């Protein structure tokens, strides 16, 4: 219903009720390994672990993962290719260690992206925002971010319907018209967002908003077993990559 497949997956994930702190520990640990360990075999192990955990115990649809990785994949491919091409006096050629450097870049980046995706597809963003507060991000900022999260979906829905209405009246039939329609679309969504903010403010004032947007925190208890397994698993990953290398 939302059009953001990663968010839908996060709410439906089997790990939705795990403590965000636990999942952060795991995923940040994996991201760290992805960066710090050598690409072979570190990145491969991290990437595999992230994907297996996601489609296995967390029950994230493989399709969602596959689609989500497409965008970073495009950037990684273009970026890595550019990095390993050499600009010489006689034109363009491969850098001396192109294959190794390219492989390492792609490996690190894919593993890192997979680790972040594991977090993204198992933890709704709104669960992570309270964690920011514990990292001493001011409450006001966290509240702004939580409003962004809610309004995002409202505005995306407006964007979709207004664009459909414009398309139906042939607003995107030529290049020029597409531009004009896009401008009108952006303006409509922007004025909508202001309107929403004003009316939401009124709606919330009625429920006693004096200071902030405090809500009852959801209790998602941390699991010792999960934490222990995470630490052990990460340690095993590090030592395995050292042994294999």
């Amino acid at each position: 219903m939302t059009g953001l497949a990663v968010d839908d997956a996060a709410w439906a994930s089997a790990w939705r009720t795990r403590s965000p702190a636990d999942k952060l520990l795991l995923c940040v640990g994996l991201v760290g390994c992805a960066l710090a360990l050598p690409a072979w075999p570190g990145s491969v192990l991290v990437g595999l672990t992230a994907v297996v955990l996601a489609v296995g115990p967390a029950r994230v649809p493989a399709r969602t993962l596959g689609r989500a990785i497409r965008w970073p994949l495009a950037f990684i491919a273009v970026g890595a290719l550019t990095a390993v091409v050499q600009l010489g006096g006689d034109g363009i050629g491969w850098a001396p260690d192109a294959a190794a450097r390219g492989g390492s870049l792609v490996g690190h980046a894919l593993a890192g992206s997979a680790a972040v995706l594991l977090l993204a597809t198992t933890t709704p963003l709104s669960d992570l925002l309270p964690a920011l507060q514990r990292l001493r991000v001011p409450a006001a900022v966290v509240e702004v971010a939580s409003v962004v999260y809610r309004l995002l979906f409202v505005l995306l829905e407006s964007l979709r319907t207004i664009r459909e209405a414009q398309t139906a009246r042939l607003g995107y039939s030529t290049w020029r018209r597409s531009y004009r329609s896009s401008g009108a679309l952006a303006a409509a969504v922007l004025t909508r967002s202001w309107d929403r903010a004003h009316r939401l403010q009124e709606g919330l004032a009625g429920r006693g908003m004096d200071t902030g947007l405090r809500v009852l925190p959801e209790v998602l208890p941390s699991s010792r077993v999960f934490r222990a397994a995470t630490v052990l698993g990460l340690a095993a990953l590090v030592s395995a990559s050292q042994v294999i290398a």
Partner: protein
Amino acid sequence: MHIAEGFLPPAHAIGWTLAAAPFVVHGARAVVKEVREHPEATLLLGAAGAFTFVLSAIKLPSITGSSSHPTGTGVGAILFRPPVMALLGTVVLLFQALLLAHGGLTTLGANAFSLAIVGPWVGYGAYRLTRALGGDLLPGVFAGMALADLATYLTTSVQLALAFPDAGSGFTGALVKFLGVFAVTQIPLAIGEGLLGVLLFRVLVTNARPDLERLGVLPVRPAEPEEAR
């Protein structure tokens, strides 16, 4: 242009995070102050952030045939000022990383530096300069939005070139490579985003004048007498 997770070496990731931090903290201070003085600002700022996110979901047809998404940092800078955009932009980048897999967590600092700091400041500077030189709102908006986009693209290329200097020609060679590769999409996009800005503000001036006045983009017109005919 968002640098993907894991693409930058750790030292660079940390370096850019440290470089971005003061601006983001400054923005956060501004936001905290604003919210303390006007509690309802939370919702307006949230709406601004959500709009920035949603704007990047608009598809702009580009001359090269493919379509691309605007960065939206220029509009944000003109409407909400660069300090606030440093924070909002970073929040939006975090959202893009976790909802769309655009960008990443360790590259958040680098992406924030180019998209939430350099882009808005350059865009805002270009906008103010154009206005100061006697330019109207719309040329100012065009300059602001197009240059914000270009500045972002330049910064990202510099970041990549610093991380991956060319084996033969070093940093300069790498910069030329990255600028060249991304120019194909980014230069048309910059022009496109400038045009989008003009069309956007043209509608806003007629439809949302009071909001523009509230944000200080347009001077407040003296109130018309009641029952003016």
